[in-house]
């Protein structure tokens, strides 16, 4: 049901974009909404990060999965339980680039009555990794619409991505992997009962939205083609802050649907679970060194507390304690 509502929501967005493109509201679709979306995305992300940054992290709470730094003859697991900056950087790099923690994903099964067994389940890691990396490559490849002297690395990326030279326009390998990975992640979400149980609209909606973006993009490239020359004239005018409305009429409706879905993604980004893009860098369970045992971390909101020590107590009651025959430390 939650998946169905999310699907309907995305289809509704498609219908809205289609209607607006047909109803000659292309300036809104092609210029106003994209600008608003990019502004909301950038400032929304900054606001979100500053909000997180204003929460104190008084205690060291890294989750560790290895031997912490100890006696010299005990081998430390430097990446799993980092004790310094270099270790933390290595650990974060593993997490950000290779999704180290997803690699530990397990599946749990019951067998022979009530026996529990745990096994590896790498599909989530593999599909997640494939999805994120291909999404990044596709995003970077789109820079060819936003730069005139297209940077050499972007051109190299594109050459590498299309090196199979299948068909014309040449097939991009990432397009295939991307759609397969998103579909795989969706199937995993609905097939595994435990995962389906905890899945919310906020999980399905971005999946369908991103799938919609991918499908419309692939359709525009390989099936019903659009006039990409006019598209680039539009995008170049947008990045120069001098929108060229003259080409809006020459671009197919499918492009406006694609663009509208991307605008919605950008608008939605800072307010949804997608902010894990910034959040992964700010997770105290990942980005802190596990040095609790030898470094004192003082709670920033500590205020001075008057402590009545035993010494003071004894000073107050020494005479009475002696009278009662109690032992005292000072005579």
């Amino acid at each position: 049901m939650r998946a169905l509502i999310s699907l309907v929501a995305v289809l509704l967005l498609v219908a809205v974009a289609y209607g607006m493109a047909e109803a000659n509201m292309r300036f809104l679709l092609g210029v106003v909404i994209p600008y608003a979306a990019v502004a909301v995305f950038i400032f929304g992300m900054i606001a979100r990060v500053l909000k997180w940054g204003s929460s104190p992290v008084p205690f060291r709470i890294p989750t560790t999965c290895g031997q912490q730094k100890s006696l010299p003859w005990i081998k430390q697991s430097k990446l799993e339980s980092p004790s310094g900056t270099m270790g933390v950087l290595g650990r974060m790099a593993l997490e950000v680039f290779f999704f180290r923690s997803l690699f530990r994903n397990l599946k749990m099964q019951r067998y022979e009555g009530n026996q529990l067994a745990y096994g590896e389940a790498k599909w989530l890691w593999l599909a997640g990794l494939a999805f994120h990396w291909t999404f990044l490559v596709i995003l970077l490849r789109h820079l060819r619409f936003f730069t005139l002297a297209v940077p050499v690395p972007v051109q190299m990326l594109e050459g590498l991505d299309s090196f199979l030279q299948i068909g014309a326009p040449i097939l991009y390998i990432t397009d295939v992997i991307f759609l397969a990975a998103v579909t795989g992640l969706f199937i995993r979400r609905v097939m595994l009962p435990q995962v389906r149980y905890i899945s919310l609209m906020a999980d399905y909606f971005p999946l369908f939205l991103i799938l919609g973006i991918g499908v419309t993009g692939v359709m525009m490239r390989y099936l019903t083609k659009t006039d990409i020359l006019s598209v680039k004239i539009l995008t170049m005018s947008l990045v120069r802050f001098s929108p060229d409305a003259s080409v809006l009429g020459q671009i197919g409706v499918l492009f406006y649907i694609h663009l509208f879905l991307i605008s919605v993604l950008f608008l939605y980004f800072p307010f949804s679970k997608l902010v894990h893009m910034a959040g992964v860098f700010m997770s105290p369970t990942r980005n802190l060194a596990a040095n609790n045992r030898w470094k004192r971390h003082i709670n920033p909101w500590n205020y001075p507390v008057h402590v009545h020590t035993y010494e003071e107590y004894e000073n107050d009651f020494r005479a009475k304690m002696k009278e009662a025959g109690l032992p005292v430390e000072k005579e």
Partner: protein
Amino acid sequence: MKLYDGGKIFIGLIIFVAFAAFPFYFNVGKVNAKPEPKTDTPAIQEWEKQNGKKQCVESKEFMRTEHMQLLNNWRDSVVRDGNRGYMSDAHTKRFNMSLQNECMRCHSNKKKFCDECHNYMAVKPYCFDCHIAPKEEEKS
């Protein structure tokens, strides 16, 4: 608002903005020349004189978005089936499926026609890895 580890957070935010706003500052101060493919070769002018209008194998709109697909189909037809005859929708005329002998006969100005948009879009078709491009005199 007090920031904890503000230095690190600001470095992160600067990197984020540098990536997100890349297209906006990268193009500052660079020329923004729109492509203008030229269809004024002698062969095209001759055709225009005879027929009263310029007309490619298919309509201009079709050619603009689908020419790569058309050429790919032509290649498959010629190389795999040995069939060089092409009946277009726009003409009643039969065309010879050949990049060098048919397309480039009219569009003998590869640099001012093909490359004009391909360079703008940073597209690098591999047609002329095998085919011979028409000879062009550099006119400046």
